[in-house]
């Protein structure tokens, strides 16, 4: 099957030309979206839903650094073992522990401002990992190291989801 990059006429690589991706996405949607076939026969309506679904999925994957890295590693035959490999560098884990403790404290204190700060901090951490991913995949082609970074990114994503639940709990 065609890679998500090829679908949008983009070069394979972690660094992403967001403007080109968005332009291609909109151009394609403009031609195949179900709204263009609302009055067509069943066969065309079905085909349109199928193709648009595929295009939406590819767009989602490419936009998200974690998913994009996973897709590239898969194309290169690397198994990231997201669920089974939980080994993390010690300094990374230490920072995570600190963030998690801060999150628990903020939840207990029902303090949205602290959550905002935590989120910002998490954002910085994420950008750091993403920058290193770009280096590993595009420049060094060190896919094993990249797989480790993807696992770190997944870890950060879970923490982000927990922050989101903490907001919900405060606002409920």
């Amino acid at each position, binding site marked *: 099957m065609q890679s998500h990059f090829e679908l949008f006429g983009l070069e394979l690589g972690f660094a992403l030309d967001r403007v080109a991706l968005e332009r291609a996405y909109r151009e394609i949607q403009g031609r195949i979206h179900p709204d263009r076939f609302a009055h067509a026969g069943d*066969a065309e309506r079905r085909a349109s839903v199928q193709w*648009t679904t595929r295009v939406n999925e590819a767009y989602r994957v490419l936009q998200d650094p974690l998913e994009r890295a996973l897709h590239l590693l898969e194309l290169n035959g690397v198994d990231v073992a997201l669920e089974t490999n939980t080994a993390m560098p010690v300094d990374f884990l230490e920072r995570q522990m600190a963030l998690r403790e801060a999150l628990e404290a903020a939840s207990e204190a029902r303090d949205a401002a602290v959550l905002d700060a935590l989120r910002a901090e998490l954002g910085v951490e994420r950008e750091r990992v993403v920058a290193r991913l770009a280096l590993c995949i595009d420049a060094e082609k060190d896919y094993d190291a990249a797989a480790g970074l993807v696992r770190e990114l997944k870890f950060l994503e879970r923490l982000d989801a927990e922050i989101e639940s903490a907001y919900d709990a405060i606002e409920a």
Partner: protein
Amino acid sequence: MALLQISEPGQATAPHARRLAVGIDLGTTNSLVATVRNGVAVTLSDERGRVLLPSVVRYRRDAGCEVGYAAQLHHAEDPKNTIISVKRFMGRGLGDIAHIENAPYDFVDAPGMVQLRTVAGVKSPVEVSAEILKTLRARAEASLGGDLSGAVVTVPAYFDDAQRQATKDAATLAGLNVLRLLNEPTAAAIAYGLDNAAEGVYAVYDLGGGTFDISILRLSRGVFEVLATNGDAALGGDDFDHRVYCWALEEAGLSLLPPRDVRVLYAKAREAKETLTAHGEAPLMARLSSGEFVDLTLKSETFCRITHTLVHKTLGPTRKVLRDAGLTIADVNGVVMVGGATRMPEIQHAVAEFFRCDPLNNLDPDKVVAIGAAMQANVLAGNKPQGEDWLLLDVIPLSLGIETMGGLVERIIPRNSTIPVARAQEFTTSEDGQSAMSIHVVQGERELVSDSRSLAKFDLRGIPPMVAGAARIRVTYQVDADGLLAVSAREATTGVEATVSVKPSYGLADRDIERMLRDSVEHATDDMRARALQEAAVDARRLLGAIDSALRADATLLTNEERAEIDRGRAELLAALEGGDHRAIKRAAEALNRTTEPFAGRRMDAGVKRALAGQKIASFDI
């Protein structure tokens, strides 16, 4: 004076026949229909010039019914048979409905969706809504002078799958060809965006009679992209009326009232609320059936105090939608206010304070949804040339998941995914030799199945005996452009498959719709047959038209043999149309659809290639 043109006999008068398409806002309190006429979207009024149709249906003993103002006249004297705010019951079970104790109806607890016992028999909320839609359809056909080709029907963005499906069923029952279910705030954004040539990020705050939606959209160069949506499907102007009603009961020292008095006092409570929009205080007077007289004055401070928590309840989803969109208040260029309930000054203040800017009110909050829906219907019907139309990218409001061991929800499609969307996930058996698997489809953000909305349950049977954990069952969720879900499950080693369009367990099965259609046609089988024939013929002609235009555009994608096969199919369908048997027409249309499947796929492929090729040319230009 310029001479008027008269066309040659036998030729169509219009250079390209416009399709009659409408947008319908099926509201909790009022409903509207609008269309695009001479390039301008207009709401259509009844014979007395009234645009709003009260969403009220009264059933009579003679099995007939009254809709709108005529029904509203009797709401106090005949509360049991006069259904108001039926939208609150769509796709809902008895236990899901707030303040049900104040509703004067004779509820029947049916599986999935509550029903109402009236003098004309037991009615589903779908049937009641269909009466409202039929009235609007008749109004549109009288006003436009022809059969409708299609309709866009709006739903609250925060409606779940059950509520959406119920709305679509109601439209089908009313004989409408549903071009699309459109989210209300998205419809409003279309109307607002096109009217104001708006670009940037906008929030749409939509507080209707019974539902609250908050959507964040990015508007740019002919694309309306919903970034995130949130809301509360059981919060609206009705709840403010309820607070005023409860306040009046307490102030007047009243307790349980007969249904008639409940209706009277509710109506007075609503009037008082509406008066407060322009005044600092409002009288609330009512004569009860006991002869007692309620004489109160509602001050706006009091109103704000008793409804404060309701206003506050809209701000939680508003914060959440911004976080989901990955934005802050500073990123929002404007807030569009939609829905009659946003006329309340305290809502205007709360929104202004939250977003730190004055909300936009330059379109009539009652009409803006119908206007946007009409504009979208005009595009979907193909009445706008390419280049002048726009693209709409919408999302699902609530996550879709599946029940796993221990009553936990595994999320399959997260909320705010752009539709259409499909996701698949593999599951396995928990016991040795397990031969069947029960698939329970749920919707919502909670982790426990018991806290989520149950959409459907079905079984995948015939799994070959294996040790626990060895089977590979792939479950696929597909959400279409209306936001409606279909689920399929497949065992990998044997290919055993089960599919469900997530409909029958809560909504209506197709045969229920057929039965209701039959019931609604009072004159026996001749009319049924005539109607079936007419519908099949309309569908067949639409299909032929679509295939002709596809062939004009892309005939080069076909081999000679394929082209000949399609031509044969067309000829057979034309012959069936001549024959006048609706079953034969349907069969021929289905066959033609099958024949054109590879062609349809190739056209999409070609569309993608052209999109990319067009881009390369465009980038050379720069």
